[in-house]
């Protein structure tokens, strides 16, 4: 049965008391890659009519009509898709657009999207309840738990690593409170940029100072530099232990920058690419890890 919430002017938050349900929603727009992938995983693909530009997983999500950057949404662009409900990451904005959408009769539901495992589980639960796919949701959660347990095996030495994005000649590093930092932490490694908050442009000298033992570079960055080897030749990077020991991996952007369903894969990729087994079997070779 569909329980229809009374009309409010603010986007809905999660309510434990009487969660709304949209079991028969056939026109869904998702905002935020972490939301989109779960909606696909819950099997609601046929009801998805549009998404934001950063939702690129699974690949066919990129085929959907796009509404642009999820932090600067255009109100008419979304309305023209005539959605019934909008499942929005908590970071979607600007606020007044979501309010206008709500006032136009579209249900806008905010979903937790923090860089933490708790948020991931909460997101799966919330979405599965909203879309009346509770069983699939529980299944996803247990799969996730299982995969995470596996990835926890073979712990690695807690060495320092860094996640880099290279854009137009500038270096950006992932500090704490990012999804990337969380993934690094879950892999058992140490984020060398933990004292910085968020993604920031870093001075090239930082790499010489901090001497990361391992490097994660996002795929788009690697492509723009012309290959991982070219990255390791970069003057700022060349003399780091990571480059000297060829301990660098390329990681898909969405994988590296979101705590989502593929978290176990990301952890696995990082551990196998960068980690040294605590049992001391020696470092693995670097290589590109594709997902």
């Amino acid at each position, binding site marked *: 049965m569909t329980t229809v919430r009374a009309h409010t002017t603010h986007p809905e938050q999660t309510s434990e008391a009487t969660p709304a349900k949209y079991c028969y929603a056939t026109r869904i727009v998702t905002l935020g890659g972490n939301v989109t992938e779960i909606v696909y995983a819950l099997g609601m693909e046929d009801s998805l009519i549009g998404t934001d530009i950063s939702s690129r997983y699974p690949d066919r999500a990129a085929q959907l009509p796009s509404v642009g950057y999820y932090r600067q949404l255009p109100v*008419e662009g979304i309305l*023209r898709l005539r959605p019934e409900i909008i499942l929005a990451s908590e970071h979607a904005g600007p606020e007044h657009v979501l309010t206008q959408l709500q006032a136009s009769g579209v249900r806008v539901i905010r979903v937790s999207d923090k860089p933490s495992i708790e948020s991931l589980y909460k997101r799966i639960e919330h979405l599965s309840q909203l879309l009346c796919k509770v069983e699939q949701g529980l299944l996803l959660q247990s799969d996730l738990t299982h995969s995470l347990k596996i990835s926890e095996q073979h712990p690695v030495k807690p060495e320092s690593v860094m996640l880099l994005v290279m854009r137009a000649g500038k270096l950006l590093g992932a500090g704490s409170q990012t999804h990337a930092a969380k993934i690094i932490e879950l892999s058992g490694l140490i984020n060398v940029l933990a004292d910085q908050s968020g993604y*920031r442009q870093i001075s090239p000298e930082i790499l010489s100072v901090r001497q990361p033992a391992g490097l994660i570079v996002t795929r788009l960055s690697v492509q723009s530099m012309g290959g991982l080897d070219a990255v390791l030749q970069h003057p700022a990077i060349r003399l780091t232990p990571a480059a000297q020991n060829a301990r660098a991996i390329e990681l898909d952007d969405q994988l590296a920058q979101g705590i989502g369903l593929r978290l176990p894969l990301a952890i696995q990729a990082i551990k196998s690419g960068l980690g040294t087994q605590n049992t001391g079997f020696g470092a693995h070779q670097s290589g590109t890890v594709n997902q």
Partner: protein
Amino acid sequence: MKQNSAHGLLLLLLSLAVAGSLSHGAYPISMRQLYAWVTSSPPGLDAISHNVLFNIRLPRVLLGILAGAALGVAGASMQALFRNPLAEPGLIGLSAGASLGAVAAIVLTPGGFFIIACAAFAGSLMSTYAAYLLGRISQSISGLILAGVALNAMLFSLVGLIILSADDAQLRDLTFWSMGSLAAANWPMIFLLGPLMLAGLIYLVSRWRVLNALLLGEREAQHLGFSLGSTRRGLIICVALTVGPLLAVTGGIGFVGLVMPHIVRMWRGADHRWVMPASALSGALGLTLADWLARCIIAPAEIPIGLITSLIGGPFFIWLLLKGRTG
């Protein structure tokens, strides 16, 4: 063409632009629906179309008209006050102060539209006041220009410093802010800002005599009975209170205040009895068209409106330069 009919032409063009802008957008509302609504015949507009038209597009178009008119008139006033056709409201520190306030709010506070708008407004008021005080130290009007230029440089460096501590998401937010947008328009905003802006517009347009007199030079304006100190104060305060709140809610929109008075003067001369109302109308027209383009060119996404005014304003100035050399 007589003055009044030229004003009439601008008004007509503006009405057409408004009609066009209201009837186009990423959300399709067909002409037939519009026509049916205008003529009050069934089936009229469905609920969503009605909402889009009245609560999304109409406030936005109204904001565009108010903003364009205010910027045009403020630009013309500044150009007369400084006797310099390159002057615009930014010269007295308005935009730099607004940017500083907005960037500070985006980076240093949890943000949110209201906080950012208030901070931008406060910033613009404070920087204009600072420019005015600094300019008063030197008695002449060029003192005010120098103060404005110096203040702008300082404020933008401060903005740069704050940006250094911004994270990636904040950087994107403040970039979008500085490129300007009318998307935040809603009815409460129109009811709040509308009367304020209209009052400012009426005041500035009514000062056409003193603006003409200023063109003769400050001494001459005095000889014709205008007190320089109070004139300057009045104009700057009015511009600050009209354009300041505007920048706060729209972000940075450039070139309108610079270009529209130019076009208008090229068309029918520099007499402010013509220039002021014409700058208001042409500013409103220009911004309405720019917003129409902003919403429709790459629909469903929107181009920030400041980008469009710059994209058009820049080449226009190059054209002016070339024309001046051969003219």
